[in-house]
């Protein structure tokens, strides 16, 4: 049965290449290579990245059966594995909290784990064991739906560069101290946190992503921040807090980020920034800020508009602007305060680099039109202005179009694209 074949093409390649190949295979296929030939018997056991997803065990409708097979499989793989494990990832929706996970994390803490990603299925939150905090070489930590309780003596992860906590139960103090104790932290992502007043002190932080119910966000020491994305949800508590607040949030938030390149704000972010904005004299310029995206902006609130204009004024190199209005139909009965647009030089200089503007969820309300007019007059190199209306009301859209056509344009090349159904 033995054919005369050519020489072995692959078994003698250096382990780094074999690892590169095996790591790009699903874990089951990688483990299966053990029966190919005697040379391949333990090649898989040396790989330094173990990724277990929903496909790592055969499918079955019974969740508990699948969970059992996943647990057995992972335990077996870890037991047979040789050498360091740099990356360990479980993203399996059938696996829920179980005692074996503690043992796995203990095992990993003894094997130089660098990247740990755990995203378990819906269910009881898993409580992270203390052995996690002994992983000295951790560079990336991503946890989902678990309870994190760092011990008091925890000195931080000295090598951690990326932290991503999604729906994690952790006390606010613990979060802040965790962040401040990771000196090399470059990327921070916190999502679905409740009622958090957060002060971030991270001298090396470059990427910040926050999503949740935040009462307050203070970027105390983040000089190197390059990209920010914030989504702030509202609760009654938070609304009250906003009303009572006397700080200037704009300064608190954007006061210390001179290197910012991209800013994305969602839901109540603009509202948050609008608090205390009147008293602001903005000394800071954001010379690197090229992209601003603000969603759910309430054009009825002139303060929010003011926030946008202030931001634009401070960004001489702005290239791309995306604004999305809120889809609420305005309730104000009084005539809008259009003087707002006349008074004071809101924008002295032109936006010399602005090339793309995209406005969505536009209802055609007076302030929105004024806003568009205002910007069109001041963007000499504008190439595209896209407008997406929020209501598919032909009459309303027609009114909007008529107003838009009247606008003067500073840029002869500007294309105004009205996108409708």
């Amino acid at each position, binding site marked *: *049965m*033995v054919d005369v*074949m*050519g*020489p*072995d*093409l*692959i*078994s003698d*390649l*250096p382990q*780094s*290449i074999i690892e*590169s*190949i*095996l790591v*790009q*295979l*699903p874990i*089951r*296929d990688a*483990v*299966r*290579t*053990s*029966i*190919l*030939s*005697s*040379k*391949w*018997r333990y090649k898989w056991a040396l790989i330094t990245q173990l990724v277990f997803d929903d496909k790592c*065990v*055969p499918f*079955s409708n019974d969740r508990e059966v699948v969970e059992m*097979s996943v647990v*057995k*499989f992972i335990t*077996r793989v870890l037991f*047979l594995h040789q050498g360091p494990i740099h990356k360990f990832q479980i993203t399996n929706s059938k696996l829920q909290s179980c005692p074996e996970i503690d043992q796995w994390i203990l095992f990993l803490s003894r094997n130089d784990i660098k990247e740990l990603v755990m995203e378990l299925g819906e269910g009881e939150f898993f409580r992270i064991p203390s052995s996690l905090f002994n992983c000295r070489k951790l560079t990336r930590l991503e946890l989902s739906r678990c309870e994190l309780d760092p011990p008091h003596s925890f000195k931080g992860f000295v090598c951690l560069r990326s932290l991503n906590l999604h729906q994690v139960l952790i006390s606010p103090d613990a979060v802040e101290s965790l962040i401040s104790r990771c000196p090399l932290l470059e990327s921070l992502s916190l999502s679905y946190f409740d009622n958090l007043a957060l002060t971030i002190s991270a001298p090396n932080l470059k990427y910040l992503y926050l999503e949740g119910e935040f009462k307050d966000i203070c970027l105390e020491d983040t000089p190197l921040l*390059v*990209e920010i994305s914030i989504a702030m949800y509202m609760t009654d508590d938070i609304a009250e807090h906003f009303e009572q607040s006397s700080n200037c949030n704009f300064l608190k938030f954007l006061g210390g980020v001179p290197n910012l*390149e*991209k800013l994305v704000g969602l839901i109540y972010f603009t509202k948050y920034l609008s608090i205390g904005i009147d008293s602001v004299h903005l000394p800071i310029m954001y010379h690197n800020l*090229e*992209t601003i995206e603000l969603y759910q902006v309430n054009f009825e609130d002139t303060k929010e508009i003011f926030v946008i204009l202030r931001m634009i004024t401070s960004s001489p190199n702005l290239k791309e602007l995306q604004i999305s209005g809120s889809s609420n139909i305005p309730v104000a009965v009084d005539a809008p305060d259009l003087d707002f647009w006349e008074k004071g030089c809101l924008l002295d200089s032109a936006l010399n680099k602005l090339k793309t503007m995209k406005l969505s969820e536009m209802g055609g309300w007076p302030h929105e039109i004024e806003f568009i007019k205002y910007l069109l007059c001041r963007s000499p190199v504008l190439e595209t202005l896209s407008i997406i209306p929020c209501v598919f009301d032909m009459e309303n859209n027609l009114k909007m179009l008529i107003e838009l056509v009247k606008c003067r344009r500073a840029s002869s090349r500007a294309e105004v694209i009205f996108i409708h159904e």
Partner: protein
Amino acid sequence: MMKPYIWLETSDGSIQQVEQEIAMYCPLICKEIIQKGMGSSKNCAICLPQRVSPATLSLILDYCRFHQVPGRSNKVLVPALPLSLMLERKSYDEKFVRMDTKRLCELTSAADSLQLKPLVDLTSRALARIIEGKSPEEIREIFHLPDDLTEEEKLEPLKNTTDDPRIRLLNRLYAKKRKELKERERLKSVEVEEEHIDKRSVDDLLSFINGNDEDPKGIKTSKNKKKNRRKKEQHQKNSCLKEASGVNKKEVNGQNIRHTNSEADIIAETSISHTEDVFAHKEFDDGDIDDGIDPALKEKIDREVEDFARRLNSDWPERMQELLSSGQERKTMLFSPNGNSFLRRNACMFFHCL
């Protein structure tokens, strides 16, 4: 002083001129030029690692030529590459790795020796795609891997097996089946060796004939056994096999011709019992066992086992008749110089009906 061209020497000793900008995309060449000042003339051509042949070098240079164009590099993260450029790069990369497996392996090896990581990742991914989802046989064939693991090693439950006794039974069946196939191979080669042996006494021949007469009966008994036994104990079968394999190991010479027959007997018995087992097994095999064994492989073995069983069942009545009649005929031809061939042919026929 940046010359536009540098000189590279490949594993076969040939030296070629390459645009410096393109060659510098390879970290190793870059280092050689900058740190050691090599490559500026034919005399101090940069010696490329042994794994880089001229053909692979030309492929690598094509890759470098495309990717070194500013804006196409992977290193740009913020701001991200525009979508059109990303798609262009992806499409180029996908076309680039379309080649036969041998060249792909050589290319990976060469890229690795030149420390060109993006190309190593690309080619590894292509190789991973080749391996993914294929059965072990297919993978062995593609990469010319020797099938040199023992049965136990192969059946070792490294994967996701359960403790289901049915699976253990199936595993044992597979093991047995493989052993059997090996048996047959070995016996066939045993016969070939028999050709060379020419020293047999008449006594031996006579005893063989006598043994042969008993044979059909032996077969009959076996067949009866088949009707009686539907389920057998595992260890019985195992011991049968052991006997057979033990007998096999004896050297082939004239004295053992008798043994060859008993061997065949045992094998026949084992084969039948094996078949029985398969049927017995199939009684409580619901067909949806998750045994963690590669499904394609399992299917193949299932098919083989069924084939085998079918042949066994269909052939027995006819073959028996044949043997009975041929046995009587052959008796008269005993003392012909072709005595050997008679032995051989009989044995052959016997095995053939298996």
